[in-house]
């Protein structure tokens, strides 16, 4: 067996079934976790409910370990996976704006879809804000092109940056996740 089964660059007609099936499963899992609820989601930032951190790190660790071991056994061509490009300074600024927006809206783009689909009007307004924001920023971006494209590092990974073996970084992320889970549980027990 050699995966990916369909190339990342394949036409939409070829990847359409995957988009729908994966999307449905993605939405189902997010709703089951309760992440379509803005009040539950922001509970993390007030130390009440760390569902976001638990869901995200569990998912990240499972997928990371899956990619690592499937790659090790030669069942998955890891080089064929699309790794998001790194732009150091723009992404740091992006995180600042995104974090401010996240705690204001109480939902991220994916969970806003879940919120809207399950009848929440506030979720619909987050979607409208996202769309309006994309139009506005897209039109203004021509004036910030140099900054937008600055500090480009291409597909750059933690093992490359740190000069460590991939397995070492994978193990470190697992330990980090376990520590984060333990700290979350401790905070939740202390919350009123």
């Amino acid at each position, binding site marked *: 067996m050699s*995966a*990916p089964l*369909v190339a990342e660059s394949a*036409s*939409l007609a070829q*990847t359409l079934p995957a988009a*729908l099936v*994966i*999307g*449905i499963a993605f*939405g*189902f*899992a*997010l709703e*089951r976790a*309760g992440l379509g609820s803005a009040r*539950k989601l*922001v509970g993390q930032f007030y130390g009440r409910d760390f*569902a976001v951190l638990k869901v*995200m790190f*569990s*998912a*990240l660790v*499972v*997928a990371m370990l899956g*990619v690592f071991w*499937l790659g090790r056994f030669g069942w998955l061509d890891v080089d064929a*996976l*699309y*790794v*998001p490009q*790194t732009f*150091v300074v*723009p992404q740091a600024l*992006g*995180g600042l704006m*995104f974090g401010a927006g996240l*705690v*204001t*809206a*109480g939902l991220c*783009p*994916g969970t806003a*879809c879940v919120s809207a689909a*399950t*009848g929440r009007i*506030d979720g619909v307004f987050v979607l409208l*804000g996202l*769309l*309006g924001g*994309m139009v506005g920023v897209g*039109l203004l*971006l*021509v004036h910030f092109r140099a900054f*937008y494209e600055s500090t480009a*590092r291409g*597909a*750059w*990974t*933690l093992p490359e940056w740190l000069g460590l073996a991939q397995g070492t970084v994978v193990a470190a992320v697992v330990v980090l996740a376990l520590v984060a889970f333990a700290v979350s549980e401790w905070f939740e027990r202390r919350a009123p």
Partner: protein
Amino acid sequence: MSTDRAARAARAYSDPYLAGAALGVVLLAAFVWIGRGLGASGAFASTAAGAVAAIAPAQAAASPLFAHYLTAPGPWFEWLSVELLGVMVGAWCSAALAGRVRLTVERATDLTPVSRLALAFGGGVLMAAGAVFARGCTSGQALTGGALLSVGSWLFLGVTFATAFALAPLLRRAWT
């Protein structure tokens, strides 16, 4: 009456570790099936690109953001848009099965519905700006790029959560 019954029948959410592990399997399935992970903000960027291109084609082509989505097959044939439609269908199915679909404005008791909707819209605008510069959001960068150990994804993940924690005290009234 029917909403009252629905509210009473609504089941509790799943265990976060279990739901998270399931989400991880979905993400891994995406890698194995089509060599890419999950995403969300790109669907909004491509839809915005399509709308602007229909009204002001020259300005759309000049934008470093929109130009990317205007190449073949065009902004209306975006993988992420189809995936997000799936997300909405899947979320509705999950909520319907658990008796959790309810028309409402979710808000703190002290906050008026209009204020909540204004904050939701404003937060959406801010996240759009952030996702443009970050080249993705919590799905495409933090989760997908994080699992692939991308440096930029981990940077985005760290800055996003640190900022949200730092600003949370200022917004306490909106959430409690």
